[in-house]
């Protein structure tokens, strides 16, 4: 709280005064708020707008990049798989055309063809010849499938119908997952035979693994029923049902967004492979894909927050600084107005005092002379000379006139100095002149006033009227703070060779620490409502500065207050400087 207090600008506590002497040019906290809000709005508005636009643009570009890359990967793998299968079915077709049925029914010949196929293409498990009745007439491979009847097998019916058949992965008689490629060869007499090869499904794994797929994705092949044709890393093993819906048919590569069985966002790229029962799928986790985007996003948000903090700090700082300067300038303006008003008031008081003194002085002078004459007559004529009572009465009249004369002289002297700028000052004399006005009050209230002026203080050039006002204000304040029977000590001594230090110490009620920093501010008054204007000390402060001095205050509640005034012996600022 105290830190906040320390950094709180002066104008913050400003209370708007609708009129009167303390009226300010503007409502400072309000203008501060308006200027900060407007500046923040026009500077942060476009920044936030642009950042949001940029955010969206970047997000969209990252997302489309992900889609594009996925589509490209799917296309590449599809091409490899298609090529792989086509290559094998074409080679079977060539063998069926290149060899007649007799040659193919020769086991040694068929075995040699199988060896060649394995060597040339790899992954061929076995090779068989089936006649038009569906019976396998020749077979080479690891299983004993000779004479097996395939006539009721689905793949057989398909190849008889279509000429070429590529099966999906199935267990078949051998109870091992495999796939089949079969071609029909028509014979001249209207008969036909079928050449059938089964392939190790490891071929797919080799194709899929040949495609560069980072850890972010899972590539696999399913058939149209959603059964896995290859084992997948995260979506099940071969011949299991994939935990994702079968994507709708499309003749092109498609990339769609979806959710996996755990509800996580995924990107699915797929392609129906023509003339086969296969659908190639690549599933990528979106979260991992947009990791780079997350980083960019974090940087973007960090940049935005950093910029906002910087802009706010600069705006608040500059607005506070400028408004505070305005406030101080306005404060100075009001001070000057009040000083003018105050010095006009003092000048009026001076003129009034001089007028009254003058008017009283003339009759007083006559009384003085008449009483003097009476005394002269008494003194010079023997008959009255011995009448002590009469002499006493006349003396009393003369001494009363003398007292009145002193009062009018004091008033005249005070008024006379009111308008003078520079003159030679005897400090002790000025202090005593001021105290003359307050002697009666001090007497009534039993306040003991002691004045100690160091003897070697030389006379110096300064503004006597201002000095009088300064002392009068401070001593008046001290009197107000003291209870009856208090002590006021005024000490003047040389501080340095060129300056005098005057301390005015009272043992009054003291000033609380929170008020100490404000007591020289205009309109700060603890006597509000009791006739205090809050201007006395602020005027004192500016008067001291006007005559080239400085004033400070130390105080302790309950113990008293000391005002210290430092005055220059030389180099006083010229009037109007």
């Amino acid at each position, binding site marked *: 709280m105290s830190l906040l207090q320390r950094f709180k600008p002066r104008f913050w506590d400003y209370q708007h005064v609708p009129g009167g002497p303390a009226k300010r040019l503007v409502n400072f906290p309000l203008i501060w708020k308006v200027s900060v809000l407007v500046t923040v709005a026009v500077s942060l508005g476009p920044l936030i707008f642009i950042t949001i636009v940029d955010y969206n643009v970047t997000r969209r570009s990252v997302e489309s990049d992900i889609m594009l890359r996925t589509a490209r990967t799917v296309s590449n793998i599809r091409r490899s798989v298609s090529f792989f299968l086509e290559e094998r079915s074409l080679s079977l077709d060539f063998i069926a055309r290149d060899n007649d049925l007799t040659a193919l029914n020769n086991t040694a010949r068929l075995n040699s063809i199988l060896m060649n196929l394995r060597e040339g293409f790899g992954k061929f498990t076995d090779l068989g010849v089936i006649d038009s009745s569906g019976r396998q007439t020749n077979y080479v491979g690891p299983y004993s499938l000779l004479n097996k009847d395939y006539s009721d097998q689905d793949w057989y019916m398909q190849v008889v119908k279509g000429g070429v058949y590529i099966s999906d992965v199935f267990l078949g008689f051998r109870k091992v997952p495999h796939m089949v490629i079969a071609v029909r060869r028509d014979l001249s007499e209207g008969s036909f035979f079928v050449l059938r090869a089964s392939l190790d499904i490891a071929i797919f794994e080799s194709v899929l693994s040949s495609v560069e797929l980072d850890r972010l994705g899972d590539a696999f092949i399913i058939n149209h029923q959603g059964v896995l044709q290859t084992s997948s890393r995260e979506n099940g093993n071969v011949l299991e049902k994939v935990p994702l819906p079968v994507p709708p048919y499309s003749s092109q590569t498609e990339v769609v967004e979806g959710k996996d069985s755990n509800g996580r966002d995924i990107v699915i790229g797929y392609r129906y492979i023509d003339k086969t029962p296969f659908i190639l799928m690549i599933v990528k986790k979106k979260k991992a894909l947009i990791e780079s985007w997350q980083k960019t996003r974090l940087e973007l948000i960090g940049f935005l927050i950093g910029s906002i903090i910087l802009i706010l700090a600069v705006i608040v700082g500059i607005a506070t600084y400028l408004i505070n300067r305005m406030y101080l300038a306005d404060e100075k303006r009001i001070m000057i107005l009040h000083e003018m008003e105050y010095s006009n008031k003092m000048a009026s008081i001076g003129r009034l005092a*001089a007028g009254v*003194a*003058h008017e009283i*002085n*003339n009759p*007083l*002078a*006559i*009384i*003085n*002379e*008449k009483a*003097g*004459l009476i005394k*002269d007559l008494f003194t*010079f004529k023997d008959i009255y000379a011995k009448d002590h009572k009469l002499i006493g009465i006349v003396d009393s009249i003369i001494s009363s*006139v*003398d007292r*009145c*004369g002193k009062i009018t*002289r004091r*008033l*005249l*002297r005070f*008024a*006379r100095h*009111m*308008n*003078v700028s520079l003159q030679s000052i005897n400090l002790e004399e000025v202090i005593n002149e001021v105290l003359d006005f307050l002697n009666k009050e001090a007497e009534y209230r039993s306040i003991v006033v002691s004045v100690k002026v160091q003897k070697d203080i030389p006379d110096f050039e300064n503004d006597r009227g201002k000095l009088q006002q300064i002392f009068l204000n401070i001593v008046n304040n001290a009197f107000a703070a003291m209870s009856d029977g208090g002590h006021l000590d005024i000490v003047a001594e040389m501080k340095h060779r060129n300056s005098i230090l005057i301390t005015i110490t009272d043992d009054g009620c003291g000033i609380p620490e929170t008020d100490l920093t404000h007591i020289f501010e205009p309109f700060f008054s603890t006597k509000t409502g009791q006739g205090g204007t809050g201007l006395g000390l602020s005027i004192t402060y500016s008067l001291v500065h006007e005559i080239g001095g400085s004033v400070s205050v130390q105080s302790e509640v309950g113990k008293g207050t000391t005002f210290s005034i430092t005055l220059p012996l030389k180099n006083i600022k010229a009037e109007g400087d």
Partner: protein
Amino acid sequence: MRILLVDDEEELVATLAERLAMRGIDADWVTNGEDAILKAETESYDLSVLDVKIPRISGINLKRELEKRNPHMKFIFMTGHGSEADYKAGSEEAGSEFYLIKPLDIRLLIEKINTALNSVGGSI
């Protein structure tokens, strides 16, 4: 030693003249500048005590007029007014030493008269 007192308050100058006479100082008095000039033309005065403010002519101007007629004449100013202009003019013209503020102290006045005339004549 002859002295001319000039003040618009007749009661004051008349009484003052009487009191000075009692002390052996021969003092005439007038209440305006014209009379003072007339007096100075016919009589010879060593010193004049002038109010700074005299109707129609200021004490300073009167002093100059009197000086024309008697260059050796000395002057003491008195005033019941404390304005700065008066103070400056009076003290510059006569020297602040010879500038008295009313009501006057008769002893001080005689002291100043003696000083001004640089003599020890007269009694208190």
